Structures are given as structure tokens and as C-alpha cells.
């Protein structure tokens, strides 16, 4: 179990220190600073063991969050907790930065008291937390006895993530499919590794205690339906769009705690009572049949010892009607670059010495197009015999579709007690595909 939790700034100064168990002493704070933050060699492992004490850390911007324990805890649990903690803090005061943490330290201690009890993680659902840990002054809180008891019953009840009696005039829900596509490609265009990790994020404004059912083009479900011969009407629901025929193979997925796992195990249907507000419904990963939105074709020619010619062509590979945004191609330059001339047809390109790379930015690009950049790099002769390692060309972008091919088929809402039906709910679906580590070797 977690023995303590520390938050440091980039210099290793302690911003927040909360100790939950006696086996963690004061010196643990310093041990982490000395051995990890100020270590001579950069510590790459997220788990560090110092003097029989384990430190699990995550870094957000310049802030270090470290959970400390002397016991043999489940490391995955600790990291899950740390990420959740980051989410909670972001939900409360926005970006995690030194200043924000300093400004909200009382709130953070309050949160830490609530979400960890004697080192055991408790309810860390932002929605639930916000009902009783508020940022208003004491005067603003006109909580009646009734409301307070309601909070108690909710927090301690079976459905801890949603309180009863929520009412909206307009029942609305927003569904975001956010994916990041990762790729490593050889110079010849052979895919060396590729996978998509995606999240389904939902923002719900629904009255009462609605029962929801979420459907997507999961291969197992589709195949089962195909075999059974019965075509589920819901499969062609208005949410899923028309091209729901292709199914995708999901390698693994995890769900928000509201999803009934037993039902998923038996019927592979995703049914749940959603929390109010924004939350992450599921996470998944696919590795098969990934649509690669861009193809990068590099051409590097070394002209003698002092010159290098680079030409890079990018091709967009999706429907011409769609527009990719925020495209950025990063072409690494050798360490002895002394000057660069760039010519590009589209967008802007610049040599950034501080990053040892040529950065080419294009604001927008439609599907099935192609664009190219060529650069001449001057080199300074060195007495170093080492050859340039040629790091891969990396790329960033954002596309309005899911590269995994995931389609939302339906999201049905049932609320038996209140008088609104599935049709009355306004539903919005959005797909965003972003680049993860999208690299092509050159």
C-alpha cells in the first residue's frame, strides 16, 4: 500500500508531502530527490528502489509526483492511482504546474485525504469528489442536511459515481473517440510496427439514473450477430453511421468502473449507468488493419563530407473530403550541421538548431494529396570517426477519423423512471485521430 505521496518541482523542492504510514520516514523525501531528480545519470525507470523503499514516479511538465512504499505493492495499481490523481487535479484547477500546485495546496491536501486512506486508494471519481470537496468558501456552501446525507449515501453506496436526482432540461451526450496511432516504418515503406491506442471519452448530461448501452463494430460482436442470423436493428442505429460493415479486432480494452464487466464477459455488451459530466468510458488497443493517415518517403543523399541533401515527400492517405490538421514533420539533422537551406512547396519549414532538426509545419492538408520538402544541409568536418546514426523522421498530425477503423454503432439510453426515451437524447459523436510516435526511418 502506498506509504506516502510527494510532489516536487523541477529543482527537487518539495511542494506537497503527505505521509500515510509510519514506515515512511522524513528522509524518504530527500532520498528520492538525491537519487532520482538530481541523479547524475537520468533515471529512466519509473520505479526506483532506494534503501528498501520503492518510489513510483510520474512526471507532468516539470512536476514530479512520487508515491512511496516499503511494501510489495501492485505497481500497476500505484501508477493507475497517480494518473488518476493527475486527472483529478487537472479537473480541479487545470494544468498541473508549480504555480497551480502552490496556489491550491490546501485543496490538494484535502483531495489526498479523500482519495487515499491509510495508503489504500478510495473513490477518485472527479464528479463524486466535486460534490463534497468544493473550491468555494464555506459561506457559499449552503448544503442542507438532506444534501449532505445524500452525498454520504452516494459515496458509500453501490453506484458511487453518480448521485440521484440529477435533472436536465435537455438530455444530451457527447461521445469522443480519441485515438493515437503509432508507427515505425522502414525507408522502403515496410511497416515495422504499428498500433493504435484509443480512448472513448463521454460527456453526459442526462437526467435520473439512465441505463446506457454502447455498441461499436467489435469483430466478436459483429461475427456473433452474423452467425446468429438475426440482424440487430440497433446495429444500424443513427449513431453508428452507414459504413458500420467493417469490423475491427480489439486486442485489449479496459473500462470505467461503471461498466458491468460481468455482462461484457458473457455477452460482450457494454452497459452502464454513466457518471455525470466528463469521463473516460473505455480504453483499447488495436494492431490489425490500421489506416495509416500519412506516408513519409525520405530521400537522403550524402554529397561528400560536408554536404547532405534531404528530400521528404508526404502523402495523405484518406478520403479527399477529410482534412488533416496540425501537420508537423520533424527531420533530424546531423550533429555537426553548420547551415541549412530549405525549400518547401507547402507550409513553413525551419531549421531549429536547439533541437537539431528541420521542422516543417503544414496547417491543413486534404486526403489523397502529396507534398514535399527539400533541404541542403552543410556540415562541419569533425575529427569524430563516428557515422551519423540517422534518427527516424517523425511526424505529428490530427485527422477527423479513427485510424483503427472503430465505429460507434449505437449508444442507447434507457431511463424507466423518468419520461424521456432514447429518441429524446441528443447525441454527438466525434472521431479524432492523432499521431503518437509516428516515425519513418531514413
Amino acid at each position, binding site marked *: 500500500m502506498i506509504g506516502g505521496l510527494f510532489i516536487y518541482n*523541477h529543482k527537487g523542492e518539495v511542494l506537497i508531502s503527505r505521509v500515510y504510514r509510519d514506515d515512511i520516514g522524513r528522509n524518504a523525501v530527500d532520498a528520492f530527490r538525491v537519487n532520482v531528480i538530481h541523479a547524475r545519470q*537520468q533515471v529512466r525507470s519509473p520505479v526506483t528502489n532506494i534503501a528498501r523503499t520503492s518510489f513510483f514516479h510520474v512526471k507532468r511538465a*516539470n512536476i514530479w509526483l512520487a508515491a512511496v512504499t516499503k511494501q510489495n505493492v501492485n505497481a500497476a495499481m500505484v501508477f493507475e492511482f497517480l494518473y488518476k490523481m493527475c486527472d483529478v487535479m487537472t479537473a480541479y484547477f487545470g494544468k498541473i504546474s508549480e504555480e497551480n500546485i502552490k496556489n491550491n495546496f490546501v485543496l490538494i491536501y484535502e483531495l489526498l485525504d479523500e482519495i487515499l486512506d491509510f495508503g489504500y486508494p478510495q473513490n477518485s471519481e472527479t464528479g463524486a469528489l466535486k460534490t463534497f470537496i468544493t473550491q468555494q468558501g464555506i459561506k457559499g456552501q449552503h448544503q442542507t442536511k438532506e444534501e449532505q446525507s445524500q452525498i454520504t449515501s452516494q459515496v458509500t453506496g453501490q453506484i458511487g459515481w453518480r448521485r440521484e436526482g440529477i435533472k436536465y432540461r435537455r438530455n444530451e451526450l457527447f461521445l469522443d473517440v480519441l485515438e493515437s496511432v503509432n508507427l515505425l516504418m522502414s525507408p522502403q515503406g515496410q511497416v515495422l510496427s504499428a498500433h493504435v491506442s484509443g480512448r472513448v471519452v463521454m460527456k453526459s448530461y442526462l437526467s435520473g439514473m439512465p441505463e446506457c448501452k454502447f455498441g461499436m463494430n467489435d469483430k466478436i460482436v459483429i461475427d456473433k450477430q452474423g452467425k446468429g442470423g438475426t440482424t440487430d436493428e440497433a446495429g444500424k442505429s443513427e449513431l453508428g453511421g452507414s459504413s458500420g460493415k467493417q469490423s475491427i479486432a480489439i486486442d485489449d480494452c479496459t473500462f470505467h468502473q461503471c461498466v458491468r464487466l460481468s455482462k461484457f464477459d458473457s455477452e460482450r455488451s457494454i452497459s452502464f449507468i454513466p457518471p455525470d459530466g466528463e469521463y473516460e468510458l473505455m480504453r483499447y488497443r488495436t494492431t490489425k488493419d490500421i489506416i495509416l493517415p500519412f506516408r513519409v518517403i525520405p530521400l537522403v543523399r550524402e554529397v561528400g563530407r560536408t554536404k547532405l541533401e534531404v528530400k521528404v515527400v508526404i502523402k495523405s492517405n484518406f478520403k479527399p473530403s477529410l482534412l488533416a490538421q496540425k501537420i508537423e514533420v520533424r527531420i533530424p539533422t546531423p*550533429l*555537426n*550541421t*553548420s*547551415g541549412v537551406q530549405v525549400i518547401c512547396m507547402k507550409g513553413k519549414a525551419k531549421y531549429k*538548431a*536547439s*533541437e*537539431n532538426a528541420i521542422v516543417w509545419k503544414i496547417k491543413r492538408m486534404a486526403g489523397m494529396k502529396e507534398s514535399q520538402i527539400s533541404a541542403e544541409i*552543410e556540415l*562541419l*568536418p*569533425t*575529427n*569524430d570517426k*563516428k557515422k551519423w546514426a540517422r534518427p527516424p523522421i517523425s511526424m505529428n498530425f490530427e485527422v477527423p477519423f479513427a485510424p483503427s477503423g472503430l465505429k460507434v454503432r449505437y449508444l442507447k439510453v434507457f431511463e424507466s423512471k423518468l419520461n424521456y426515451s432514447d429518441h429524446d437524447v441528443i447525441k454527438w459523436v466525434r472521431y479524432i485521430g492523432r499521431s503518437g510516435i509516428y516515425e519513418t526511418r531514413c
Partner: protein
Amino acid sequence: MPAVSKGDGMRGLAVFISDIRNCKSKEAEIKRINKELANIRSKFKGDKALDGYSKKKYVCKLLFIFLLGHDIDFGHMEAVNLLSSNKYTEKQIGYLFISVLVNSNSDLIRLINNAIKNDLASRNPTFMNLALHCIANVGSREMAEAFAADVPRILVAGDTMDSVKQSAALCLLRLNRTSPDLVPMGEWTARVVHLLNDQHLGVVTAATSLITTLAQKNPDDFKTSVSLAVARLSRIVTSASTDLQDYTYYFVAAPWLSVKLLRLLQCYPPPEDAAIRGRLTECLETILNKAQEPPKSKKVQHSNAKNAVLFEAISLIIHHDSEPTLLVRACNQLGQFLQHRETNLRYLALESMCTLASSEFSHEAVKTHIETVINALKTERDVSVRQRAVDLLYAMCDRSNAKQIVAEMLSYLETADYSIREEIVLKVAILAEKYAVDYTWYVDTILNLIRIAGDYVSEEVWYRVIQIVINRDDVQGYAAKTVFEALQAPACHENLVKVGGYILGEFGNLIAGDPRSSPLVQFNLLHSKFHLCSVPTRALLLSAYIKFINLFPEVKGTIQEVLRSDSQLRNADVELQQRAVEYLRLSCVASTDILATVLEEMPPFPERESSILAKLKRKKGPGTVPDIEENRKERNANVNGGPNHTSATSNAKASPPSFVGDLLAPAPPPTNRPRPVSSASFLQNPLTPLPPQAYAIPLAASAGTFYQVAAPAAASSTDLLGLGSSTSLNSTPPAAAPPTAASLLVDVFSENSPPVSAPAHIAVPATAAPAADDNFSSITTKSFHVAESILADVQEPTDKFVCKNNGVLYENQLLQIGLKSEYRQNLGRMYVFFGNKTSTQFLNFASNVLNVHLKPVDPTVDGGAQLQQIINIECVSDFVEAPVLNIQFRYGGTLQNIAVKLPITLNKFFQPTEMMSQDFFQRWKQLSAPQQEVQKIFKAKHSMDTEVTKAKIIGFGVALLDGVDPNPSNFVGAGVIHTKTTQVGCLLRLEPNMQAQMYRLTLRTSRDTVSQRLCDLLSDQF
């Protein structure tokens, strides 16, 4: 670095450094550096005409980046360009960059060397100094090669400036250290010595360092330096503190130079010239006098400098070791320091006194400080000082004060720091041994030592006690008594239990007369510690027990009970288990005479170097300890004689065969084989104070094989120890013995018994058999025409198949032959399984019984596969010799040939017959013809267990008749042997005699040959 003028301050550099310092994160810093590097690259690349200032600035930035830990792979050329600049700062930065960044195998080294040469040749002293510093800082072989000739020339040239001379001397010193072979000694050496007379003290200081190093290598070349050094030293010592101006440090005249001169003098023996010698003595006296003067300043620097000179002077006095008055004065001076406030001084005083103690002149003087040192040992706060105090006590110890010192050390041990405990233990052990006047004191001391600091008592210490006790008759009784008393304590250290176990096992009889320490009490005391001890100690205790059995026959029963208990006989540890089993058997089987021989008292150990001393030397390294020892040995007669270089462990290294050999050696009469002298016989020696593993391993390795091979051999050899008896109870067949081990053991047995390969019960040689074999089986059409050579290696496992039908017939590394057989009347069927144990194929596999081809087998046997062959047998008439199975196959290119006797014996065709008592006796009487009865009386080879015997008789094939014989312990059986032509009735009677361990077997059959054969077969089984 000289202060830079305003115009030289590099603003760009300052800005860059402050940028870096302001970076919030590592990433930001790296970004800033990348940017700066790109900027410098473009600058170096772009306009060629970079002025000196910018070049210097950028090189400086690169240097800074490098020192931050980033790789720099350019800018070297620019740095080399800076070398040829005429401005000091630019040149300096250039040299700095080169000495930090240029590695020796760079292409630029020639350019750099050229620049350095130019600077050395210039008349500008600052440039020369820069160049010399660069050479010294880089100090590579290349540098030495290039400038080894130039530097000495500069050093001794008449017109060189003093500061340059100084640098040159130090530069030469550095080159001499890094690559001494490249610096030639030449005519300059003589002139270097004269630098000691130089006006400039800085030059003298530098030169003294150089000369000291050179003199250590070639003392003869620099002999003249002694007189010069003494002269110089006396001038410094006698000078008033203000005379030397710049070189007076806190009222001490040139302390560094004095120290260096004194060091230089330590390279040589005391000067022979009386005048010089007198002058030196005078100097040293002055230094000692000055120490007595009141300090001229309260500053710590003053006393530090003064004491540095003083300690160096004392080192010199100790080194010369010739002036008794000086030595005693030094000793007194150090005595004062022993109580000084300053910890460092106390440390140094103790350390110097350690060396003083070994000098004959001052040894007595040192001894006067014993109280102070003991006090230091007890009260000192710093552990390193206490350590020195221990060293000093050890060094000043002699016969007169040994008891006091050892007692003090022992009492200190209880509170001593853990880091030095082991060393103190060793020292106490050595001192106790060396200066022991009477050995009772020695034994007391060591037992005390084990009691106080048991964990730190290494093996060597208690081995040594044992060695001494065993070698000294006079102390044995006392040792036994003391050990016995020490063991009474409720909590004993394991080492004490080891010593106790050993000594009581050897000499327990010496105190057995006292009713308070009667044998049983001794044993119970030891055994009460048994369960708390580790395995090696337990093993030792078991050996002590078996020794008890020899010493005190009256406790034999108790000890056997202990050995027999499950916790011993079935101990999970193989060593303990084996000891328990062997000792139990030994105690049961062997007579008292044999026991006494086997468990004789340990012979005295050969005198050898004390193992403890060897350990201390190892621990301390070849430093102070041996020196002290050498010095001491001359004056103090070593109690245990001179060192003998037989190491303590050489005994333990005896090879396994000799152990097994020795195991048997006590039993047979002495043979002409010379017994190994170095290792005492094993059973005599179970208590050797050697690491138990040393003999545990060979024993464990040999034990298994020993048993297995012992069985066949035992048939004919006098099996005194009865160790072979376990074979028949053992389910694993003897054939499993690995061939290497077997051959090894054959050597052992060959002297006592007929060769193993010719088992005893083959009564008829194979070649003489054909006539008899002709009619024994339908499958043998003719007598065998088997060459003798094959029969010679016919394996003979049939013995164990007499009473059994299934099992492993033969096994070697390649092949395993299994057997399954069934018999009915005169017919039998045998399944032979050939298992390939290797991973490769056997080719051309063929097996036949003599010349008769059976159902042919598959010619290849795959790796790991098994092949089955069926043999049908019919007994035509009674027979003696068994058929031979020949197997041929090709494995890995070589043809393998194996011949195995099939275990077909006459008794296989028995049909058991149940009959009543009177029937039996009626038939018994019918078969009364003398040739029909065969009787044999023989000694039991295995234990005489009734159940086992019954099982064997039934397995033999006859019916076991109960209640026939009036004596219930006798066995009676009856059966009929079926052959093709006739049936032979058979009656048998087996009378065991438990007391004599003998059997009488009587067989009556209707055929005399059958009687004889059956009797032979059956008698071998018991």
C-alpha cells in the same frame, strides 16, 4: 589564471553561462547548448577570418559545454590555431582546451607538438611555462617521446629563469612517473643534484621532489644528493623564521621543502661521513627541540606545519634506526602526542610508534607507554585511532607484558567496533599462542575469545587450538576439562561447540574419571547443543559420538540410539545422513579391536606456519605485520618453532581415491602399496579440523559407487566392515555404477581381492563348459564358439536375477538392457528391451544369443528409443552355464560389442509344491543317497532378516513350507524342476545361525548335478 583585464572579459561567454544557469530543466539546458553549438559551428564554418578574440570565446564556450558533460567533436583545429597566437590569454585558452580535450591519438598531435616546441624554444618565460604545464598535464607517452630530451635540457640550462626551471622539474617528474622508460638518464642527472644548492627555494622544492623519485629508482646515481640535502636542511632548520621570507609558513621555515628533504634522505642509509652524519643528527635534534618550544602562533596551520616536519624527522630517525638517543627522544615526543587534543596527532603518534616498537633501541621506551595506549584503546572516540592502538599493542607485545596486553584486548573486544573485531581476534590468538608460557593460559584465552567474540573467530583460530592441543600432551586433560566447563553455559557459540566436540571426542577419556563429567554426562552435554548447530558442526559432533563409542563402550547403546533416530538416518542433508549410517554400521559391525584401530586418537599435526598468522597477513596485505614478525623472530624464540610452509589446507586436498583407499586400508593386513603419508586414514581422521566440505565432497562422490562395486567384490574379499550389505536391500542395481568410478575403485580393490571383473561364483571357466551346455536349452543348438576375448568382458549380473524375473540387465552410457521374463514348467519367454540412452541413432543394431539368430531386430535404434526382442526358452535338461546375448551396433562410427549373460538359471523352471510335514519328511528320507544331498555352510553376506530370507526363497521358485521344521527359525521349501525330458523333485532346508552370522543350506534332489547347481545359486543369495 591571471586576472583578465576588462577588455578581455568575454561577454558572450558570460551571457551563455548565465543562460545555462537559468535553465529550468535539463531539457531546456540541452536545447540551449544545441543552439549554441549550432551557432559556433556556423561561425567556424562560415567566415574564415575569425579574429583571435572570437576564436578564444568560442573555444571557451566549447570547453564549458564539454565540462558540463556533453560531447564535443569539433573546434580542435581552432584551439590549435590559438596556440600560435601571441596573446597570453588566447594561448592559455588554447593550451587549456588541448590539455582537457585532445586525446593522444588525435591527428592534431603533430601540430600541437610543433606549437609546444616553438613555445619551448621561445625566450618568453610565460610561454615556456604554459608549454611545460601542457606537457605535464597531458603527460601521455607521445608527449614523453616528443619532449623527453627537451625538458631536461631546459631544466639544467644555465640561462633558464627560475620559474621555468621549477616547471621543468615538475614536468620531468610527471613524465618520469607516466613513462619512466622514455626519460633517459644522461649527463643532466649530475647537474640536477646541484639544483639543491639553487638560490631559489621554489626550484629546490621542485628539484627535491624530482630527485626523490629518481633516487628511489637509481639510488647510486644520486648518492651525492645526501650531503647536499643535509646541508640544505641544516641551513633551513637553523635559519631564523624570518630569513626565508616567502617560504616561511606561519613561522615555520620552508616546511614543505624540509619534509621533502627528509623524505629524500629516507631513500638512503645513514650517511657514512661522520661530519655529515653529525650535521644531520644535529638537524634532527633541532627539530625535536623545536617541538618542545612553545608555539609561536595559536593558528592551527603553524602547528600542522611544525608537526609535519617533526613526523617526517621521526620517520627518518626510525628509518636510520641507529641513534638510540634520538629514537628514545622521538618515542618520548610521540608519547606526548598520545594525549594530545588533536585526534589526527594521536593517530599519527600511534602509527609512528608502531614502527618504533620494532626497533631494538626503542622497544623498551615504547613499552613505557603501555598504559596510555590501553587507555586510548578504551576511551578513544575515533575507531581508526583505536585500530592503530590495537596495532601498537600488538607490536609492543612481548613475553613480559603478553598477559596484560592479551587481557586488555580481550576485555576491549566485548565493546570493540564490529569492523575491527575480527582483526583483534586474530591478533589475540596469535599473541596468546606466541607468548604462551603455559598452555593452560593459552587454552583459557582462546576459549574466552570464542566466548566473547564467537562470530568473529574464524575457522583458522579454532583449527589452531585443536592443533596445539593435539600436539601437546600436557595440556590435553586441562583442555578437556575447560572445554567441558565452558560447554556448561546455557548458550554456547557454535565455534565453542566445535572445539568442545573435537576435544571431548579425542580426550574425553581424560576427564571421564570424575563422576561430574562421566561419559554419559559428556555425551548428553554435547548432544544438548546438537540441534542448535549448523550442518558442518553437527557432522563434527557425529564424528565425536563415534569416537565416544570407542572411548566409552558403556555409552554405545545411547549413541547408537541417537544415530539410529530418524533425524539422523533420514536427515535431509546427505553428509549427516551418510555419517549417521556409516557410523551406526561401524559401531554395530566392527569389533572393539577394529573400532580402536579405526578410531584411534589423532596423530600429532606436522609443525607448520600458524594458519592464523597466514590469515592476518592476508588480511593486512604484505605490509606491517610481516615486518614486525621478521624482526621479532630473531629476538624471541618462537614457541612453535620456525615456520613451515606446508599450508594448512594441503591436507584437505587429498584426492578422492586415496580416501576410499584409506577407508579400506585399516581392515586388510598391510599391503606393499605405500599409503599416502600426507593424509591420515579417513576413519582415523573424521575429526580433522579442516573445513568439512573438503572431505565431504570426495566422500559423497565416492560413497555411492563404493557400495555398488563393493557387492560383487565382497563375495570373495573379507568384508570386514559389512558396508556392502546394503546392496541387496538397495533397489538400484550395481550395474548402474558409472564406469569411471568403477575402474577407479577396481584399483582399490585389486590389492585386497580378486578382480571385480571375474566374479567368484563362475565356477566353471567358459571354455570348459560346452559339454554341459549342449543340452540345456533348445535355443542353443551347439556349444558356443565364442572367442575368449568376448567372454572376458561378459557382464555378469545374473546373480540378482536368481530370485527375480524383471529388472535392468545391463547399463552403460549408451545402452540399457531391460529384462522381463516369465516361466511355466519347462518353458520360458523372455522380453529383452534395448534402450538407447543417447540422442543419436545406433546403426546396424544386431543382437543374438550365441550363434542362433532370433527374430531379427530393427537395425537402427533411434536416440532415446527402445527396442523389444522376444526370446523363447525351453529347458531341455538341467544345465549350469547361462546363454550369452551378443549385441553389436554402430554408434558414432565405432562398432560397439557387448556380451551379456542372460539370467536363465535352473531354478527358473521350478514348480512349487505344497506338502504336509510327514510328506516332506518321507520324501526327504527317500532322497537320502549321499550324492543326492548337498550341504553348504556359509557366512551371511547380508543382514539376517527373516522376512527378506522368506521372500528370497519364494523368489527362488520353491514353495515355502511352514510348520514343517520343528525349529521355527529354519526355512523349508519344496519344488519340482521341469525339463523337457524329466522332472526333478527338490527339497531344501535353510538353517540360520544368528550368533555366528552363518547359514547351513541342505538340498536334496533326485539328481546330483541339480542339487549342486541349486545349492550354488541359492547360497550366493544370503
